[in-house]
C-alpha cells in the first residue's frame, strides 16, 4: 500500500497504476476535486493544511482496516495539501480487489473514514472572505 501527502499536483494515473495487480480484474478509484461553489457562493481557490505525521498515521490505519476487512490486494491514497485551484485533484484513492464489489465497498469506506478521522483541513477562499470547511455545525 502507498500513502502519501504532498504539495504537488496528484497524478491520478500514477495512483491507479500503483495498485494495478495482474491477479485483479478491477480497480476502483475515488477522485476528489475542488468544487467551484459552496451554497451558491463562488469559490476562488482552496487551501489544504494537514497535521502531516498524524494524517499519515490515520491514513495508514484506514489502509490496515481495509486490508483486514476486505481481500484488497493493493491500495493507494494520495492527498494533496497547499493551495488548489478549482478542478484540481485534492485526493485520489485507488483500490484493487479480486472482486469488484469489495473494491467499491473498500473505496467508499476509505473516503468516508478519511473525511472523519484524518487531520486535514480545507479553507475555501471566496471573493469576499474565507471559511474553514465543516468547522461549524
Amino acid at each position, binding site marked *: 500500500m502507498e500513502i502519501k501527502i504532498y504539495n504537488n499536483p496528484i497524478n491520478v494515473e500514477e495512483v491507479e497504476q500503483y495498485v494495478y495487480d495482474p491477479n485483479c480484474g478491477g480497480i476502483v478509484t475515488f477522485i476528489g476535486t475542488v468544487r467551484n461553489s459552496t451554497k451558491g457562493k463562488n469559490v476562488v481557490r482552496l487551501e489544504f493544511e494537514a*497535521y502531516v505525521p498524524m494524517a499519515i498515521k490515520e491514513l495508514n490505519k484506514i489502509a490496515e482496516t481495509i486490508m483486514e476487512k476486505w481481500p484488497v490486494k493493493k491500495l493507494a491514497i494520495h492527498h494533496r495539501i497547499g493551495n488548489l485551484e478549482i478542478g484540481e485533484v485534492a485526493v485520489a484513492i485507488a483500490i484493487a480487489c479480486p472482486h469488484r464489489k469489495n473494491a467499491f465497498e473498500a473505496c467508499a469506506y476509505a473516503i468516508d473514514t478519511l473525511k472523519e478521522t484524518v487531520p486535514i*483541513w480545507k479553507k475555501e477562499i471566496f471573493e469576499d472572505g474565507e471559511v*474553514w470547511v465543516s468547522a461549524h455545525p
Partner: protein
Amino acid sequence: MKIKIIAYGIAKDILQTKEMSYELNDDSSIGNLKNVLLEKYPKFEALASLRFAVGEEYQDDEFVLEEGSEVVIIPPVSGG
C-alpha cells in the same frame, strides 16, 4: 506544569497562533485543558467538534497530561 499547544485549521485562527505554551495544574487531563480553552476562547464552543491529539493519536478527556506534553488541537477535519 507547562504544556505546549499546537493548533491547526480554525483552531489556529481562534488562538491567533500556531503554537503556544500553557500553564496548567499538575495532573491536568485533556478534559481540564478543554474546559480552560473553552472558557478563555469561547469561539471553540461554536465548532462542530473539538478533539485533541497527543503523540500523533486522538486522546479522550481522561488522558492525563504531563510537564512538556505537546497537545494538538484538532478542530473538525475536512480532508478529501
